[in-house]
């Protein structure tokens, strides 16, 4: 008991393949440490919701202003790939939930396996996303090579949006849909990459036996992060792919 701050509380390892965990000095109990970190993480997730929320607000705002643009824009996306990616993310969310469960039940091998599967899901998601971007690039809807070449006010020509097949020709400001599509999916994709990185970090710790029934806090938090990434995609998918 650390009432004078000199000894720390230690959670013993449940078996030889695991490590014990020392509770930080300013906490009295493991429960207090766990709950503090968890409340903090939920607050962080709330900020993520509001950060993405700004993008969603912009989406709805322009959807309201330029109906046709958004309907036609949605048609240019491949809903089949979107649905596939949705399923991939849902599956990876499931493997992550199972990973946390394995940590809670001190199943080291399973924890590693489920985390590995989750990272695999992240990679598949990104690969599919890459092919989607590639298709948009080919149709001149988002030309990545000219992304930063700017806007020519005199000709009204936007460098990255040439729409050379004229698919968006009939509607006002066709690029707006793709600008929002690109921005939202890119920021989401960044979260996928960060999430996958965190899971790899969890796997490193898991291999050393850091996580077990007595202490699985980091696994739990990274799991929450990964579910949030899934959560955002659950809304992105119908808004971007199915609005037509």
């Amino acid at each position: 008991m650390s009432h004078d701050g000199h000894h720390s509380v230690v959670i013993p390892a449940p078996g030889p393949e695991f490590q014990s965990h020392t509770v930080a000095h300013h906490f009295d109990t493991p429960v207090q440490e766990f709950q503090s970190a968890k409340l903090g993480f939920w607050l962080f997730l709330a900020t993520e919701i509001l950060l993405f929320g700004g993008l969603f607000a912009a989406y709805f705002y322009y959807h309201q202003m330029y109906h046709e643009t958004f309907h036609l824009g949605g048609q240019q996306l491949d809903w089949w790939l979107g649905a596939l990616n949705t399923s991939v993310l849902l599956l990876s969310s499931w493997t992550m939930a199972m990973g946390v469960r394995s940590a809670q039940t001190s199943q080291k091998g399973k924890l590693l396996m489920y985390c590995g599967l989750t990272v695999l899901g992240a990679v598949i998601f990104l690969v599919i996303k890459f092919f989607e971007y590639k298709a948009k690039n080919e149709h001149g809807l988002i030309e990545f090579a000219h992304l930063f070449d700017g806007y020519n006010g005199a000709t009204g020509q936007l460098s990255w949006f040439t729409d050379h097949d004229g698919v968006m020709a009939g509607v006002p400001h066709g690029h707006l849909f793709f600008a929002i599509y690109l921005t939202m999916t890119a920021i989401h994709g960044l979260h996928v990459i960060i999430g996958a990185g965190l899971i790899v970090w969890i796997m490193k710790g898991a291999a050393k036996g850091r996580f077990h029934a007595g202490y699985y806090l980091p696994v739990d938090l990274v799991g929450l992060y990964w579910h949030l990434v899934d959560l955002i995609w659950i809304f992105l998918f119908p808004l971007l792919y199915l609005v037509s």
Partner: protein
Amino acid sequence: MSASNDNAGHGHTASGHDAHGHGELQMGHHHVSSSAMFLNVLIALLILTAITVGASRIDFGSANLLIAMAIASVKASLVIAFFMHVKWDTAINKIVFLSSFLFLSLLFIFTLADQATRRMDDQALTTKTPVDKQWVHPSTLAEQKQ
């Protein structure tokens, strides 16, 4: 409860409102969900995904967006309640996460309402106000007089 009890023999009694120590070192009292439940949730999520795609193929007019959002909300609730364990989480954690949606909805409501009612403004200004009552910039007036 950084301040622990002066009575060392008494163990890890945490006080205050939110933390409740169980006098144990393990966090064993945390909820561990069954694998079967997780699997059921996954299946429900995949089915709902199929339903959204199906529903979007049918033309409900402007209701399509609403339907898609409603289904997405159900899916999100499943992920939040089960995968994210919110169903078994502490009250404060629930409040924190749900209030983020509440405050976000304020951003949505006011910005979208502004944008939507601006069109009504335009109509009110152009159709209801007689031409001679409409506001004209003074410099335009001066030009007209000349």
